């Protein structure tokens, strides 16, 4: 016979032992000799995952579903293989940014958003309530059953009992008091609870040993080993389906897969798992061993679930005993008093471990991310001016712990008793799974925005509430059952358990499917459509690039003015004078400066202060407080974006490089072009020199030849001598003319000609030049006519140059016109605003192919008879240069053996 007081006494002794361990660990931590700083304690503390659900509920599930309970443990086994990548990054980010909780993490990632942190807190608290109620139910019902020892009777429904007689209520209160003792004796700037972790690790050992003990006892004490149990099950027709059970589980493989995924998320995002795995982590390297130790622990604690479940089914075939209690009732049935008590303590350890860590984590969230941001914003409270806020912070947390446990108890009274343990827990799993998209998205995807995270969470949480939370209340009669069976307003498509007509899935799979679609879809969709502000972009980069950050990741983004004393005062108010002094001294020492006195309030110090504060009150509140103490200059989005973009420097450089290379390319192009031009000019010059030399040599050769003849033949016939002397003179003249023209060309081309433009009367020039040429024309018997109007407007030109052009054209015409009946006509006309001069001869004409070319240097129409040109080949080139320089145009019109007409125009004087 187990007396009630014995059970209570043992329970309190156990809790006292836990407290002793915690106290000792805290003392050791204060002395700087931590007992939890090793991977084994870390792995054992992760085993807080195994709660009363595992301890009692797995057997209950296995008794009806066979291996249906296993995905909850296989999921974490798979997930932990990825922890090396995912969890290490989360831990690194949390350490860099002094994250204090899951809500802090998500709020911080999306621009230190207090609203988002608050939303996460609300979801976490509501989502976890069923889970806490599960623990209360487990403790109270196991106590009630043990109290009846050796009778085995199921406890009456607690809802019927008055409050003061309800064990669960007292359990909730005792646990609250105990959690307050554990978690909120003092305020730690980094939210480390070393004592708690040590106690949790110890609890993990106790529950494992208790479960293994009962497993071994049932398997080998009550039955003859595994084979015996399974043989008996096979002999029992009603239990045979349990041996190949996957199809038997509602939803079959789909349910199996979704439960696995669900537990993969739960192992990371349950607030208590986040607390022990991330916040309480002392060293990233502890993760190594935990990656295989933790799955090993889960394997061990699950080994005997099936034997106990089947043993229970065989022992209590009539179903009078709840399968959730087999772990306790089997030893009781075998009259093992001590073992039953050990099982009770094991169950107690599983439940208290969960409740303590979960409520501490949740109270931190409620305090830092829900209450403080609101209080700090309420100017009326003048909170920012209070000297010491540590008492207030602790008060809020203690209140939150009591509140959460009482809410858990309320849920237990409202809905908890209608479900088996596992089903209650799964509702909570599905709630925290909603954190997966914003958190995982937040550390690997920079594009996720605050609005996206907020909308995604709201959507996912709403679907969760509609498809899981509400049905749980409905089953207990708190929501009209018609809503469940016909859908709201009789709309069958909106039935909470068969949303949009999706049926054939079990409740959890159905809810997970829809809530994940809503959550991920909204998160990604809204993120992609929206924009981020500077703060968000900054935090996104800090989180996603956690491995690339320097020691103080945020400091480089800060710009403003502050005083070190002010920051110190701020810190004192929240974490107390001793801790603030110590922090500042440590900081100053690390920089080789003295405090107080030498410390400058630069960006690094402000960042340091904000991080210290974040450790105590969360990132969002810390940001508000520091902002109130210092004047921060707002950074524009562009500035931050520029700073952020981890490649921006590289991009700027490469951009410049690109620009430089483009400039270089352009310069090279220009150079090449210039070079081409120079080469062309060089070639032209060579040509010119060659042609000039040739042109000069021709008259020189004839002069020399005739001079030699005259010298060598003194007795030459006088007439012949005269003729030859005449040739010498003519060739000399030609030479002179040639040289003059070459000088002209070079002057024109180098621009060394002095132009004296002025109004010129073309009629006068034509008359003068014709008169000048008339003697030559008469010698060659060429008729020279002019055809001119009475009056011609003056043109703008250089008189001497125009005379040169006219003489050149006239002498050409006289030279090339018909040898016997030569006719040259000069015509003057005006059209629009130009005066046009035509010089026409009846010479052999110029082939169309040559008409352009004759204006080039040294180009002449070949003389058909002698093949030797009369001219120098420069005259027309000079004419063209002069006319074009004066703004006119020159061209030739001719046909072979027809008349040739050289024309040019000159602009009228305005």
């Amino acid at each position, binding site marked *: 016979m187990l007396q009630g007081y014995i059970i209570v006494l043992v329970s309190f002794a156990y809790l006292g032992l836990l407290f002793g361990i915690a106290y000792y660990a805290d003392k050791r931590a204060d002395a700087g000799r931590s007992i939890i700083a090793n991977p084994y304690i870390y792995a054992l503390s992760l085993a807080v995952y195994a709660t009363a659900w595992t301890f009692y509920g797995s057997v209950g599930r296995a008794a009806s579903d066979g291996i249906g309970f296993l995905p909850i443990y296989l999921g974490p086994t798979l997930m932990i293989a990825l922890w090396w990548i995912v969890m290490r990054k989360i831990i690194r980010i949390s350490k860099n940014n002094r994250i204090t909780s899951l809500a802090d993490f998500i709020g911080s990632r999306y621009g230190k958003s207090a609203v988002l942190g608050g939303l996460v807190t609300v979801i976490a608290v509501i989502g976890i309530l069923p889970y806490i109620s599960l623990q209360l139910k487990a403790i109270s019902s196991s106590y009630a059953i043990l109290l009846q020892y050796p009778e085995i009777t199921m406890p009456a429904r607690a809802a019927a009992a008055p409050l003061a007689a309800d064990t669960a209520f007292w359990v909730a209160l005792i646990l609250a008091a105990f959690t307050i003792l554990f978690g909120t004796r003092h305020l730690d700037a980094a939210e480390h609870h070393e004592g708690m972790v040590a106690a949790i690790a110890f609890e993990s050992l106790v529950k494992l040993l208790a479960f293994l003990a009962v497993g071994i006892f049932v398997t080998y004490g009550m039955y003859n080993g595994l084979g015996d149990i399974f043989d008996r099950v096979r002999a029992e027709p009603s239990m045979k389906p349990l041996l*190949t059970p996957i199809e038997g589980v509602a939803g079959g493989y789909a349910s199996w897969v979704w439960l696995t995924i669900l537990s993969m998320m739960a192992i990371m995002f349950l607030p208590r798992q986040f607390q022990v795995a991330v916040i309480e982590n002392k060293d990233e390297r502890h993760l190594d061993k935990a990656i295989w130790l933790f799955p090993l622990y889960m*394997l061990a604690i699950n080994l005997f679930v099936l034997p106990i479940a089947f043993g229970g089914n065989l022992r209590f075939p009539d179903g009078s005993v709840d399968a959730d209690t087999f772990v306790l009732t089997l030893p009781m049935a075998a009259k093992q008093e001590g073992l039953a008590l050990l099982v009770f303590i094991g169950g107690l350890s599983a439940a208290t471990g969960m409740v303590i860590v979960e409520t501490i984590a949740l109270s931190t969230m409620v305090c830092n991310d829900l209450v403080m941001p609101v209080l700090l914003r309420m100017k009326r409270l003048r909170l920012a001016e209070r000297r010491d806020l540590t008492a207030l912070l602790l008060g809020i947390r203690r209140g939150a712990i009591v509140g959460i446990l009482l809410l858990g108890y309320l849920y237990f009274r409202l809905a908890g008793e209608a479900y088996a343990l596992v089903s209650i827990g799964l509702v909570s799993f599905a709630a925290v799974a909603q954190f997966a998209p914003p958190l995982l998205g937040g550390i690997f995807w920079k594009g996720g925005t605050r609005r996206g995270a907020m909308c995604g969470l709201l959507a996912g949480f709403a679907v969760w509430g509609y498809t899981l939370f509400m049905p749980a209340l409905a089953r207990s009669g708190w929501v009209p059952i018609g809503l469940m069976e016909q859908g709201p307003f009789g709309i069958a498509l909106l039935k909470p358990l068969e949303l949009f007509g999706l049926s054939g899935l079990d409740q959890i799979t159905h809810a997970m499917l829809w809530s994940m679609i809503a959550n991920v879809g909204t998160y990604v969709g809204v993120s992609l459509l929206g924009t981020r502000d500077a703060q968000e972009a900054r935090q996104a980069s800090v989180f996603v690039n956690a491995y690339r950050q320097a020691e103080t990741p945020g400091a480089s983004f800060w710009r403003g003015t502050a005083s070190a004393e002010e920051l110190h005062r701020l810190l004192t108010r929240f974490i107390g004078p001793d801790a603030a002094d110590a922090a500042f001294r440590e900081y100053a020492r690390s920089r080789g400066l003295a405090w107080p006195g030498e410390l400058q309030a630069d960006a690094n110090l402000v960042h340091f202060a904000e991080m210290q504060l974040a450790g105590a009150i969360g990132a969002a509140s810390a940001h508000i407080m520091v902002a109130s103490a210092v004047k921060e200059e707002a950074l524009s989005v562009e500035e931050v974006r520029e700073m952020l973009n981890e490649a921006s420097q590289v991009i700027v450089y490469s951009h410049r490089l690109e620009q430089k290379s483009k400039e270089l390319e352009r310069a090279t192009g220009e150079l090449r072009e210039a070079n081409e031009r120079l080469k062309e000019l060089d070639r032209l010059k060579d040509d010119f020199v060659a042609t000039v030399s040739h042109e000069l040599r021709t008259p020189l050769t004839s002069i020399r030849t005739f001079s030699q003849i005259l010298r060598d033949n003194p007795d030459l016939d006088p007439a012949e001598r005269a003729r030859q002397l005449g040739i010498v003179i003519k060739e000399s003249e030609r030479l002179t003319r040639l040289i003059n023209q070459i000088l002209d060309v070079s002057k024109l081309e180098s621009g060394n000609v002095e132009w004296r433009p002025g109004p010129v009367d073309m009629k006068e020039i034509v008359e003068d030049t014709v008169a000048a040429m008339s003697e030559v024309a008469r010698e060659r018997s060429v008729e020279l006519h002019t055809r001119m109007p009475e009056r011609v407007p003056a043109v703008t030109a250089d008189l001497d140059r125009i005379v040169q052009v006219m003489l050149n054209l006239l002498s050409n015409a006289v030279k090339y016109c018909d040898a016997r009946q030569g006719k040259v006509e000069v015509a003057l006309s005006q059209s629009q605003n130009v005066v046009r001069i035509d010089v026409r001869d009846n010479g052999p004409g110029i082939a169309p192919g040559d008409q352009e070319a004759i204006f080039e240097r040294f180009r002449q129409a070949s003389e058909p008879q002698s093949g030797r040109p009369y001219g120098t080949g420069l005259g027309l080139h000079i004419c063209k240069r002069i006319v074009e320089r004066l703004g006119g145009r020159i061209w030739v019109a001719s046909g072979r053996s027809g008349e040739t007409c050289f024309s040019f125009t000159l602009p009228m004087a305005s």
Partner: protein
Amino acid sequence: MQEQEPRSQRLIALFVLGCLLFNYPLLSLFNVAAEVFGVPVLYAYIFAAWALLVALMAIVIESRR
């Protein structure tokens, strides 16, 4: 990070292996009414695969080079 790179790839490989072992269709191969040493083959398979996975993780983590 560099010397830890093979380790993270091995762990990812183990994750994929685990996903295969604990899912349809491999799981369905063992979902039959047979037994090894008196234990239904499905249970034996799952716990054996689980133990194997844990052992492999331990080997990957503890192997130092």
